[in-house]
């Protein structure tokens, strides 16, 4: 008779004993969930079926079950390190106390079961409590003037929201026309980037429009060596085909 092949049918596990041991040792099955008494019962039933006492099997079973019980006890009282320091007599006392407690609880459970069996013919209505909510909630003492002040504060016209930060200010193109004409009056040519350095993006855009306006009127010539290179502005029109490459900018 092989103990390890003992078939078990427990709440927490169903299968051969050796698989149970493997799962427990791998910590894939919490031992606290395993009913060791159920294992013993299954073994005793198997023994009874065979009608002969297999001492080897009994010995092996006792060793395995003892180990399981020790593991289970350690698992259940993991946080109770002080128990490990007890003398044998004290440990027996502690164990006896706990067994007594459990015996009482078991007795109480039996009493409840008997009570249930005796009162098995009690039928009564079950359902959610349909009690009306109690309307006893009262407000604290209130000051009407404070309520009026609160309502007035709520009814006041809200301050107008300012959109000033969203407004774009465009300087007139003429300002840059005059500026560029003045520069070209003094010099033959100038760099556009240098002239508009320090201006806002909007001002730079308007200045560029002014530049295009001057080019359209034939007052200036524009040169740019490469895309994104500085734009060179010269007085007068030279050759239309060669000078007009500002599109690449």
């Amino acid at each position, binding site marked *: 008779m092989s103990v390890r092949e003992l078939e078990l049918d427990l709440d927490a596990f169903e299968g051969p004993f050796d698989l149970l041991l493997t799962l427990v040792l791998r910590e894939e099955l919490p031992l606290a969930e395993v009913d060791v008494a159920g294992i013993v019962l299954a073994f005793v039933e198997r023994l009874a079926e065979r009608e002969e006492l297999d001492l080897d099997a009994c010995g092996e079973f006792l060793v395995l079950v003892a180990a399981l019980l020790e593991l289970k006890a350690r698992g259940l009282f993991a946080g109770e390190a002080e128990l490990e320091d007890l003398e044998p007599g004290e440990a027996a006392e502690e164990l006896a106390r706990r067994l007594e*407690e459990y015996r009482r609880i078991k007795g109480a459970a039996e009493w409840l079961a008997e*009570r249930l069996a005796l009162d098995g*013919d009690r039928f*009564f*209505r079950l359902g959610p409590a349909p009690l009306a909510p109690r309307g006893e909630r009262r407000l604290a003492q209130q000051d009407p003037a404070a309520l009026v002040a609160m309502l007035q504060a709520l009814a006041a016209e809200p301050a107008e929201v300012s959109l000033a930060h969203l407004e774009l200010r465009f300087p007139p193109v003429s300002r840059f026309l005059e500026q560029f004409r003045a520069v070209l009056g003094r010099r033959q040519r100038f760099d556009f980037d240098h002239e508009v350095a320090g201006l806002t993006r909007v001002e730079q855009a308007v200045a560029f429009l002014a530049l295009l306006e001057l080019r359209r009127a034939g007052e200036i010539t524009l040169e740019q060596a490469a895309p994104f290179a500085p734009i060179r502005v010269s007085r007068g029109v030279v050759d239309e085909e060669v000078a007009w490459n500002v599109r690449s900018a």
Partner: protein
Amino acid sequence: MERPLRLIQANPLDSLARTIEALLVVASQPLTVDALVEACADEVERVETALGLLGERYREGRSGIVLEQVAGGWAFRASREAAEACGRLFERPVERNLSQAALETLAVVAYMGPCSRPEIARWRGVAVDSVVAGLVERGLIAEAGRGDLGAVRYRVTPLFERVFGLESLAALPRLDDFGGDAEQLRGRLESLAERRPA
């Protein structure tokens, strides 16, 4: 000419008794004397006397409905005589198939509660998570705050008292009355400990 049904002939509490009767019929859980006093807008003594009259009228063997004092209040139930017929028509999911593990867990919570799952596990010697969840689902135990270490604690519900026909938890037998041969067990363990090699 129709006359109202008189529970007790010429009793000055007739009207109050009828009102209480109506309240108990509508209620789906036991009503305390305080709740009845409030609903009837009457005095405690008069309500208690009226309940006594109703108890006499609705007692086992006299009526199909029985008035009982249970779970801290008063409630109607079916008479035992009608139990068989009731059983053919109605389920009792709360108490059906309560396992030994569930009964032991209930006993721990009833006597020791409020207590947490680790505490129940310590008493029973096995993990109780699934059993506790099942009892909560049945409505026999309920959460009752948290312990010092943050674990949820449980107590039995009024439904527990009603299912087991208890007036209150005080009606449970003393825990010390269970487990008779404790001294014998203690003696056996002590002798085993003495025999164990050091």
